[in-house]
């Protein structure tokens, strides 16, 4: 366990972007909150405060989540390639740490450590922004942004998302690790080409597009598997617009459905197999 702690610390030394990007995103959003010309007043007076709070929290959280997905993808592609490229793998391999430990520490960094860092970043940003906006917009908006229950729900939502996406995207992460441990150059290209080639080959020879469907279900399917589409909505009519906001996260979270879905576990099994392949490649491929 001690080795894992050191390896994760090592990832922070190597990839300062792990915390610098969320810090930059947070800083940017806070600057927007400070100087942005958003007409918060008019919104806040007409829309129920709970809806404003929800939209605000989800917008900030969503921004962080989107940036995190892109960064985590890049991290996974790079993590077993960078030290082969600069040959520092010869130093890491001179230490009594197994290749399995190394690969698993990088996987854990991508699927747990990085999301948690972004989660903390999103939380801090929302807190600071809520404070700034409250001050700027006086009392009107203040109440809208300080629903304790809403905050609690957001924490639950984040944790639920971290856990479910770690499991759901395991095959994607495994595939990226395989590419990262295998490619001699151009990891980005190598990660995209094989699926596209397979997809085209299938279409060419069989006229079907099962791979495309399966890929799409995996890449875009977390929402459909982890959440219920209708978890209860609150509808408000403001002027002529109808605003529909979720009544709360509890109705939407579908943990039972997610954890009992065969698709969840079939994907996880494929992911585990790919990770085993990545470990084997790491053992055999020392240099580029």
């Amino acid at each position: 366990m001690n080795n894992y702690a050191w390896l994760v610390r090592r990832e922070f030394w190597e990839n300062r972007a792990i915390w610098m990007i969320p810090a930059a995103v947070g800083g940017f959003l806070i600057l927007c909150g400070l100087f942005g010309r958003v007409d918060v007043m008019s919104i806040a007076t007409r829309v129920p405060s709970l809806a404003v709070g929800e939209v605000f929290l989800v917008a900030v959280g969503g921004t962080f989540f989107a940036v995190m997905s892109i960064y985590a993808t890049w991290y996974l592609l790079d993590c077993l390639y960078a030290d082969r490229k600069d040959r520092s793998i010869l130093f890491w391999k001179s230490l009594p740490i197994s290749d399995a430990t190394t690969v698993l520490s990088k996987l854990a960094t991508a699927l747990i450590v990085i999301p948690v860092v972004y989660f903390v970043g999103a939380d801090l940003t929302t807190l600071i922004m809520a404070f700034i906006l409250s001050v700027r917009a006086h009392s009107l908006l203040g109440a809208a942004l300080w629903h304790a229950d809403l905050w609690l729900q957001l924490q639950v939502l984040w944790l639920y998302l971290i856990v479910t996406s770690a499991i759901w995207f395991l095959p994607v992460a495994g595939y990226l690790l395989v590419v990262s441990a295998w490619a001699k150059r151009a990891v980005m290209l190598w990660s995209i080409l094989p699926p596209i080639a397979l997809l085209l080959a299938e279409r060419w020879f069989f006229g079907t597009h099962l791979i495309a469907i399966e890929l799409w279900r995996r890449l875009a399917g977390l929402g459909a598997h982890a959440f219920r589409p209708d978890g209860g909505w609150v509808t408000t009519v403001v002027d002529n617009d109808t605003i529909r906001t979720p009544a709360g996260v509890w109705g939407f979270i579908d943990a039972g459905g997610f954890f009992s879905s065969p698709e969840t576990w079939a994907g996880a099994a494929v992911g585990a197999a790919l990770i085993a392949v990545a470990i084997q490649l790491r053992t055999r491929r020392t240099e580029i």
Partner: protein
Amino acid sequence: MPPVIEASNLTKKYGSHVALDRASFSVQPGRIVGLIGPNGAGKTSALRAILGLTNYEGQLKVLDSEPFRERTRLMHDACFIADVAVLPSWLRVDHAIDFVAGVHPRFRRDRALALLAKTGITGRRRMRELSKGMKTQVHLALTMAIDAKLLVLDEPTLGLDILARRAFYDALVNDYMDETRTILITTHQVEEVENLLTDVLFIDKGRIVLDSSLDEIATRYAAVEVAADRVAEARAEKPFYERRLLGKVVLYFERPDLDRLALLGEVHTPSVSDLFVAKLSGGAE
């Protein structure tokens, strides 16, 4: 004591290219062994196999481990510097020490700090800010602070100036080496290490062409410097290599009759580098 490294029929192929061709050798504890060969002879392949960095055919035991299958276990007792300056550019010197101290049970931090203090390299600098020579010194400090039974060095002083090189080898022999340790070293600068080696392994075209201690070399090989007019006479003694040198000819003999050679000219024990050239150019065996 069992040998530290025992290889028999060690073979490594890359496609159709045979880098190691049924090489058999052993390294005894407490020795400083030079693995010497021309470029492309299989030195690096042999080292990679010994360190568990690559798969191989044949039998290989290093400190009772099968290197490729048990690299993690092996690295508790062995350490290596494979080529120079492979410390990653983003790594800070103090972090490097913390990390190795954290994951290596045999690492002695005080030793590493003492070694680094001599170089004047300060802790918070990143590798990318250091010159190649400084990077090598950091790596050497990290490695020499590990209480290992086997230390493998692949061109350890490449990029170091002559003062640093001399200091490194002095430290290696005086501070690091003792009877419990074994050092395997490859270098192109044979002259630089031949005084500290106890054994040599010559490797050529993937095969071991000489596996001998320096003491054995002294009894087994001889070189004779003869004047040009007595070369024919000397050739009758069947030298395996000869070299012209300022009007004289130096002839190299294996298992010679020393009394008869002494009549021809001045007899001496060839240096490791001369023997290396003689063995590899002269169509050995």
